[in-house]
């Protein structure tokens, strides 16, 4: 068979065409080495294992999670032969592989975003006590979403709930959630809260919620956000950037709306508490009337006593002025003409006698 003669450029083009046909997209797992960012735009690193090493290239905006040398990652890439004859991987996406790398990546991004103030408490907005219009971003097929809906329906009613069905795990999940956030944030009538929920899963399943662009989109949402991802022990960067963090989707439902049973109990209690208040006022007013009455009686008795004393004194004076009392003290009462030869009547305590006036002298 005769060899095909090609120019260098053609050979590179044919090789790339063959590679593109054979490996349109591959996932390669390895350890990052010689990581660097040039001009703030171009990312270069080597991916290696015990048996070999391959150069990787990507744009900085495609790097959704922080990576550093020594970290184990999985890249989604297309193999390519450059015009300088260097074989490399053009990376479309990179994600940490294994628990250690996920944790490391999480910590690096957490530190970075924390320094920017994305998790600051003073950025947090409060949610309305009883919202009327709520947006939910979740997979409508997930158990977490089903739990959320059941608890919201059990607890309260009258809400308009708009749901955006998105993937909540995998490489496409962050972008889908970001688009849903943009969708709700651009409505003419904004919802009062955007709830992002996903049930439990492995660290890899939940890693979508540690995507830098998603975390920034949550922090930048015009509408207050409530995020409930995974189980209580799981912490995602989306949680930290949200205005309110729920431990689970069920907990998000509990935070979002009050329990109607509790509202009914509180309303009943309010009405029940009125009767003792009325009774209390009646008691108070009865006491006032009773006290006033007692005061009036006391004053009447006091006045009567004073009048009785005065009467007693007058009676005593009257007794002293009674002529019989004077006669009893040995005096006599004389009646008749007080002139010589006149007959007078003399009354003592015991007798009344008549006598003739023998002499009259002026005192």
């Amino acid at each position, binding site marked *: 068979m005769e060899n095909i003669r090609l120019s260098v450029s053609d050979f590179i083009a044919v090789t790339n065409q063959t590679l593109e046909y054979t490996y349109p997209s591959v996932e390669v797992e390895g350890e990052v080495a010689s990581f660097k960012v040039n001009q703030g735009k171009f990312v270069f690193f080597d991916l290696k294992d015990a048996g070999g090493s391959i150069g990787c290239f990507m744009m900085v905006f495609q790097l959704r999670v922080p990576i550093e040398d020594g970290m184990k990652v999985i890249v989604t890439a297309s193999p390519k032969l450059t015009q300088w004859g260097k074989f490399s991987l053009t990376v479309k996406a990179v994600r940490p592989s294994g628990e250690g790398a996920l944790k490391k990546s999480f910590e690096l991004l957490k530190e970075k975003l924390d320094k920017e103030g994305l998790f600051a408490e003073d950025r947090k907005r409060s949610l309305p006590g009883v919202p009327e219009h709520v947006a939910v971003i979740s997979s409508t097929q997930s158990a977490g979403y089903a739990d959320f809906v059941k608890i919201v329906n059990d607890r309260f009613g009258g809400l308009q709930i708009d749901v*955006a069905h998105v993937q909540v795990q995998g490489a496409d999940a962050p972008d889908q959630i970001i*688009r849903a956030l943009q969708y709700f944030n651009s409505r003419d009538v904004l919802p009062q809260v955007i709830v992002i929920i996903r049930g439990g899963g492995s660290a890899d399943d939940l890693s979508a919620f540690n995507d830098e662009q998603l975390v920034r989109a949550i922090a930048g949402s015009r509408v207050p956000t409530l995020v409930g991802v995974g189980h209580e022990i799981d912490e995602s960067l989306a949680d930290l950037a949200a205005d309110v963090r729920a431990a689970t989707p069920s907990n998000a439902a509990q935070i979002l709306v009050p329990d109607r049973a509790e509202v*009914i109990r509180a*309303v009943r209690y*309010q009405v029940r508490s*009125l009767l003792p*208040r009325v009774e209390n006022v009646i008691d108070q007013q009865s006491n006032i009337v009773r006290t006033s009455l007692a005061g009036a009686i006391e004053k009447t008795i006091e006045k009567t006593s004073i009048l009785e004393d005065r009467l007693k004194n007058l009676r005593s004076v009257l007794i002293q002025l009674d002529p019989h009392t004077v006669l009893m003290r040995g005096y006599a009462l004389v009646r008749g003409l007080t002139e010589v030869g006149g007959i007078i009547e003399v009354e003592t305590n015991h007798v009344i006698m008549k006598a003739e006036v023998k002499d009259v002298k002026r005192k």
Partner: protein
Amino acid sequence: MSKENKSIQDNIVALSELVAWFDSEDFSLEVAIDKFKEAEALAEKIESDLTALKNDIQVVKQKFDSEA
């Protein structure tokens, strides 16, 4: 649906105002019975409205798997 929710909120506020009247200087025993009956009726209305309320859940038609 949210209008009904609003009316429940209004009724809860009205009930709170009625309850506050019982602690206010305007309180008078002559009016208290009528106010109490009003509060009782309001509480019953709130309870029945709350029990009857349903949520309106709609999945939006927009797809989010690619740029619109």
